[in-house]
């Protein structure tokens, strides 16, 4: 699996890039995930607004709702939840697509044409995920922050100036970069695991449609677990 990632990164930095396929994956991983990210980001922020206000008001600190929602989303929930959503929506589809191509000998056909399957199937996904994940995370964060304000500000009475003003005082550039590095690395994890599981469907997971379904399940589970484990290590390093 490590060698698979090394090869993918190598073919990513050595031209040529299959640009049309790359654009197609940007559309699939990025653009088509926006609605899902808007929904999950919005509702996560709204829940944070409720829970945060409830907890902070116990200590008379409800003025700090803005920083609490902002920091939780930017540093932790935004990158992690956006990555988990993309794993479920796009990662599973990537594994299924590549797995079916493996089972129906389409990858063999590529190889026999003297073409490198990594350049067609892995590199465009990897590059697209590395670009899309940070952008989707940013959308998640922004929508979540407004979702928090909708509840905290409009419903529970925290003023807009307090909510956003305190947030601007407490959220630093370093916090934003932490979220950025996390989402970037999650993009690599998702495509690495999902492409690998699809590429070797049949080798590790059995043949036929059952093999593809097992590969897809394994890809989603392994990606999700790796995202959470890697999140812990990144947090402990960047803390």
């Amino acid at each position: 699996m490590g060698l698979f990632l090394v090869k993918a990164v190598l073919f990513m930095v050595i031209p040529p890039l299959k640009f049309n396929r790359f654009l197609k994956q940007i559309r699939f991983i990025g653009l088509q995930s926006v609605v899902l990210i808007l929904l999950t980001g919005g509702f996560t922020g709204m829940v944070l607004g409720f829970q945060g206000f409830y907890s902070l008001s116990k200590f008379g600190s409800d003025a700090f709702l803005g920083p609490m929602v902002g920091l939780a989303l930017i540093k932790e929930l935004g990158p992690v939840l956006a990555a988990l959503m993309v794993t479920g929506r796009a990662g599973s589809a990537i594994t299924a697509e590549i797995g079916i191509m493996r089972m129906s000998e389409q990858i063999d056909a590529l190889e026999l044409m003297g073409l490198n399957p990594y350049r067609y199937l892995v590199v465009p996904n990897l590059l697209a995920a590395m670009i899309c994940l940070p952008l989707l995370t940013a959308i998640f964060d922004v929508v979540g922050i407004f979702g928090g304000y909708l509840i905290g500000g409009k419903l529970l009475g925290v003023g807009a100036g307090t909510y956003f003003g305190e947030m601007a005082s407490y959220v630093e550039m370093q916090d934003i970069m932490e979220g950025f590095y996390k989402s970037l690395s999650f993009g690599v994890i998702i495509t690495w695991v999902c492409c690998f599981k699809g590429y070797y469907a049949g080798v590790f997971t059995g043949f036929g449609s059952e093999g593809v379904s097992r590969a897809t399940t394994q890809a989603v589970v392994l990606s999700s677990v790796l995202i959470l484990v890697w999140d812990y290590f990144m947090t402990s390093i960047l803390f």
Partner: protein
Amino acid sequence: MIKIENLYRSFDGNEVFRGISLEVMKGEVLALIGRSGCGKSVLLKHVAGLMKPEKGRVVVDGREMDVARGRSLTALRDRLGFLFQGGALFDSMNVFENVAFPLKEKTKLSDKRIQTKVLEELDNVGLSGSEYKYPSQISGGMVKRAALARALVGDPEIMLFDEPTTGLDPVTGHDIIKLIDACHRRLHFTGIVVTHEISTVFTIVDRVAMLNEGVVWADGTPSELFSSKDPIVRAFVGDSDGRGKREGGMHEKV
């Protein structure tokens, strides 16, 4: 052109090849027959370099496929066409895009020249008018024809056919075999056809090799196989009335 020397290969402890040796001369078409699961398709994949032997070697035009890497392997594969059992068409592309794909990716031909060549090749295999259909929208016979067009569009010197008639009705299967013969007459490729369609395929091949118990059990012209006294060969070819194109010496390993 293709030389297989003392090939050994096993899967999960099951020995599929136990010293296979076989040679296909330039311009010759060889039919590879044998019981299901005897390793015919696996042998074809070894010739194409998709699988590596445990022992022995596969030499294609003087170069060892199992040690070829990078550009030398690509150069060898550029001269090779492969018709997969299931066609292996890219299901997200239509027939035209499938056939045009190797030309777009591997050559510097203009779009207009590619279009002319693809339409010409589709016409040769009888698929004019189906250019913009997707693999899921066409019949099994049409998938094989489209896959054949894709394999032949680069004018390969070597063609490997993996059960080209499997899953087709007898009439369509016969048409595919005739098509392969017509393509051979046009392009003069060296070929290996893995098949169970003995009576039909034997009319278009120069030689036949039969795999059994991990070795080449019989090797000769179609006529020689039909007149063989070996019970295993007889059991396989039966009393079909096929006759081959050429005559020559047959070698049985009994």
